């Protein structure tokens, strides 16, 4: 995924709040039309990064460029970086249509054009007939779509999203993921999506940026990050990974849970003996949890019919193996 002219360029960006270093040193290019997810545990600096892009925070050091222009001294209201807030931040004293028109009015678009553009977006977001509703009369999913329409009606080059789905029910999250990916493809604009949810990031993004303690831990496609985590932090954060000792002393390898095979009798010398602990139904299969020889947690993903054949009991001994090509060595 190469983009000739990056839309956004962070170079050497650092941000401190008093003694706390929220972002240590950030170098990141984001291309035009790219869907980038910035992911990490809370306090990793992902939200600060997004807020700096929107101009809500000023970098302590370094520069942020948007379309080649240095943005450090451009105030929030002069930027074209609409944000979908975690709380949505819809205006409760305005109705649905007035909310969507707000950005247009602030940018001096005249009333009749603002009206027609707002109606177009409400229609597009499936909110036709809701334009006179008050915000507190809408469901969570409808509010979400109002927030999207409000941000996109000004036809920006990029959309920033700050954990927008975290307040929704699980089934709505999946549906909104579909809405977002489709929208991003149709509009061809850049989406910068901040989340702590691996499933959201991996389901939607072209590229995932994993952040930890104010630094980028790894950048890559969801596939790359899932199959080839660069270090232990990424491997652990991504989850459903087994971190094992490599053949070379001191080296660690990662084997994803879905590449682990479970046997009820010892197949060969390389198998790890592990005791069954519990199982968990995941969307794509069943994750079985085991305790390894040194008390470590091991995970293996099996199909439902395999689970039925294995019929594991807690404490029962199994053997885990993997194909050599499934193992990925960690570098740091």
């Amino acid at each position, binding site marked *: 995924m190469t983009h000739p002219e990056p839309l956004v360029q962070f170079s050497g960006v650092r941000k401190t709040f008093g003694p706390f270093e929220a972002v240590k040193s950030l170098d990141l290019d984001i291309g035009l039309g790219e869907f980038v997810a910035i992911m990490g545990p809370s306090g990793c600096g992902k939200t600060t990064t997004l807020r700096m892009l929107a101009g809500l925070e000023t970098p302590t050091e370094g520069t942020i460029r948007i379309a080649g222009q240095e943005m450090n001294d451009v105030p929030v*209201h002069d930027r074209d970086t609409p*944000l979908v807030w*975690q709380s949505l931040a819809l205006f409760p*004293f305005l109705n649905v249509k007035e909310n969507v028109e707000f950005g247009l009015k602030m*940018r001096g678009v005249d009333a009749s054009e603002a009206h027609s553009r707002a109606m177009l977006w409400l229609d597009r977001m499936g909110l036709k007939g809701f334009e006179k509703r008050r915000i507190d009369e809408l469901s969570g999913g409808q509010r979400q779509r109002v927030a999207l329409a409000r941000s996109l009606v000004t036809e920006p080059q990029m959309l920033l999203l700050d954990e927008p789905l975290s307040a929704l029910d699980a089934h709505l999250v999946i549906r909104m993921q579909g809405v977002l990916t489709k929208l991003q493809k149709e509009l061809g604009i850049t989406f910068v999506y901040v989340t702590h949810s691996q499933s959201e990031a991996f389901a939607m993004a072209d590229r995932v940026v994993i952040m930890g303690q104010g630094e980028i831990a790894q950048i890559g496609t969801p596939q790359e990050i899932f199959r080839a985590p660069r270090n232990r932090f990424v491997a652990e954060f991504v989850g459903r990974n087994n971190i094992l000792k490599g053949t070379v002393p001191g080296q660690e390898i990662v084997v994803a849970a879905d590449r682990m095979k479970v046997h009820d009798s010892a197949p060969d010398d390389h198998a790890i003996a592990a005791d069954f602990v519990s199982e968990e139904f995941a969307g794509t299969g069943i994750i079985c949890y085991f305790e390894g020889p040194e008390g470590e947690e091991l995970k293996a993903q099996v199909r439902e019919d395999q689970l039925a054949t294995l019929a594991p009991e807690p404490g029962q001994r199994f053997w885990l193996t993997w194909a050599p090509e499934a193992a990925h060595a960690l570098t740091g």
Partner: protein
Amino acid sequence: MRRSNALTWIYLTALFGFVFAPIVTSMVFSFNSDRFPTVPLGHFTLHWYETAFARPEVWTAFRNSLIAAATAGALSTALGFATAYTDFRYGFRFKNAYLALALLPPTIPLVIMGLAMLAWLARLGLSGTLPGIVIAHTVMGAPFAMAICRLRLQQMDPSLEAAAWNLGASPWRAMRNVVVPFSAPAIISAYCLTAAVSFDEFIVAWFVSGLNKTVPVMILEILQGNVDPQINAIGTVVFLTSMTLVIAAQLLILRKSAK
């Protein structure tokens, strides 16, 4: 259950009776033809209203009070809202001291406040003038306005204002188009309440009003001369004016917290 319900009703009736009986008595006697407040009542009359409002100084006093209430209400509300917004939006050193100072005026005994105002306004050449009364009442009303606006701003999502900036609103336009509309119920109720405070206020007004008497000051001066049922008539009008303002303020506060 029913027994305690009945007790509650008795208690409430007694409470409201105790609070409102004197006012109701005054209202009743304002329509009574007898010169002295005695039972049995005479016949119904509007005579006391007619004589009271035939006096030009009563009209002047009402005019003074209304101007002072309207202006002091507006100034207190503007100051109170600005103070509450500063508290909502900014964190700074000595913020607690700043807030304590802003909320201080109601704790000062009114006689002291009146004396201090008299001394200070005399220096500025404003004692005995309507602007002098407005200044004094603004000082007294602003903390109430601040408390009401602060309560409302605490309910506001801090992202709301930033969302307005993010959509292209300059800080001033965000204030006008988001913060003020959001706070509108509190601003109106603060205005009603501070106007009522000014309209009713006697002690400080007595010190600083000089010849520009407000209604409460005039009432006392009439009363010092003689007991006259005109006082009941004027008192009834004053009571209804303040109650209208206070009830309007209360309704707005209740409506906004119901949301």
